[in-house]
């Protein structure tokens, strides 16, 4: 009896159901895998197990699962995917803490390239659109930077944690094919750069860009973004901060005509 239990223990597997897609235009389909269980496994190591032995639950040899990942410590944002219905990073999704079968699919808000690989290019476009940077280029001496208070620094530090992972866009009901909303993260980035003493020199430009088509106004206050953000960025506070900026900006612009 105890020997049998040991055998069962040895053969303990993890049941994974993937939503796969062979190419950008191909139809998505489901595929199941049973991979041998190891202690402290995460979704990435489970997928690496499939790479080593790409055999599905029916015993067919198939192409291994395709995904993107870099840092494996939840700071790069590359391995974002939908795991058991929640968008999150695969590297910090521990198998022991997930209900089986584990359902894994791509973040469909973005164009799927293959399997779990998505093109998050629209996020980079959004950052360019709202001018999410501080223009200090030049060869001349700009002098010392302005002094900053520790409280301001701490506020900006929270906002600076954004890794453009795309989870807030996947969670937002107003980011979809019918809407042009650039997403909550972009609002957080405008708040970040507008709050910087040097960045504030260009804050009108950023606010102006943020309230153009597909901007700030598309937020519907479902507040999913702040719940979903893996970095705990105060996105809804950033949105309301920019709402106040936008209100002031709007009246200022009207009155200066």
């Amino acid at each position, binding site marked *: 009896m105890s020997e049998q239990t040991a055998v069962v223990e040895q053969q303990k597997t993890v049941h994974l159901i993937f939503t796969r897609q062979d190419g950008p235009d191909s139809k998505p389909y489901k595929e199941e895998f049973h991979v041998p269980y190891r202690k402290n496994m995460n979704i990435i190591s489970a997928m690496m197990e499939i790479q080593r032995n790409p055999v599905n639950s029916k015993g067919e040899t198939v192409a291994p699962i395709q995904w993107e990942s870099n840092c494996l410590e939840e700071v790069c944002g590359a391995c974002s995917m939908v795991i058991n*219905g*929640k968008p999150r990073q695969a590297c910090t999704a521990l198998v022991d803490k997930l209900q089986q079968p584990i359902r894994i699919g791509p973040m469909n808000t973005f164009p799927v390239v293959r399997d779990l690989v998505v093109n998050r290019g629209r996020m980079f476009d959004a950052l360019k659109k709202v001018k999410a940077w501080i223009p200090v280029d030049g060869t001349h001496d700009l002098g010392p930077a302005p002094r900053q208070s520790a409280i301001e620094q701490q506020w900006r530090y929270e906002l600076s944690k954004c890794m453009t992972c795309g989870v807030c866009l996947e*969670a937002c*009901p*107003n980011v*979809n094919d*019918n*809407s042009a909303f650039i997403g909550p993260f972009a609002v957080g980035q405008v708040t970040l750069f507008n709050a910087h003493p040097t960045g504030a020199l260009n804050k009108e430009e950023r606010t*102006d*860009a943020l*309230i*153009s*088509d*597909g*901007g*700030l*106004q*598309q*937020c*519907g*206050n*479902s*507040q*999913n973004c702040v*719940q*979903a953000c893996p970095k705990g960025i*105060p996105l*809804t*506070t950033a*949105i*309301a*901060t*920019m*709402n*106040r*900026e*936008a*209100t*002031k900006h*709007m009246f200022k612009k009207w009155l200066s005509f």
Partner: protein
Amino acid sequence: MSNQTDFLNRRLHSLLGVIPVGFFLLEHFYTNYHATQGADAFVEAVNFLWAIPLLPVLEIFFIFIPLMYHAFYGLYIVFRAKNNVSQFGTFRNYMFVIQRITGVITLIFIIWHVWQTRIQLLFDSTPTAHELAMDTASILSNDVTAILYGIAVISTVFHFCNGMWSFLVSWGITIGPRAQLVSTWVWIVAFVVISYFGISSILAFNDPNFAINVTALQ
């Protein structure tokens, strides 16, 4: 210069929901609440409103047009969202969905209600406040109608109160999580109080004694 029409449209939608549409809602509830003090008080309140100069102009420019803009731009917002409460079952996400559902219910109700109580007045060349009180009482004497009105009142008040919460966020008045939480409680209380006023008014019209009193007045 980037295109900010979308921003201005959305902000206009938000503003009109409060001024004048939200203001009108409160005024309307206040007038109707007079019905709880009997037919006399209601007739007096209606006559007071009808004495306002240029009333049709006010009705068209301060109620009808802003309401239509708010309603149809609102429908456009409703159909652009991809609701996901099954994935994110948080309080605010439910509020987001209910705001959209109650918006649609309220619009359907308003069309019906305006037809029953305002457009019908146009067919009468010399409508009196007594006739209006009698008509309203006869509409609401039907229990099914009264229940439908009750549901619609709760839906409308919810839409107004939750809309006020969103308005305060969208204009940058309540910024932090604590301010927004306090605002949530304030509007929950407002929801209960305003709903109470609305439901009491319906019950007053539904009461058979109300109609008897109206007839007696005439």
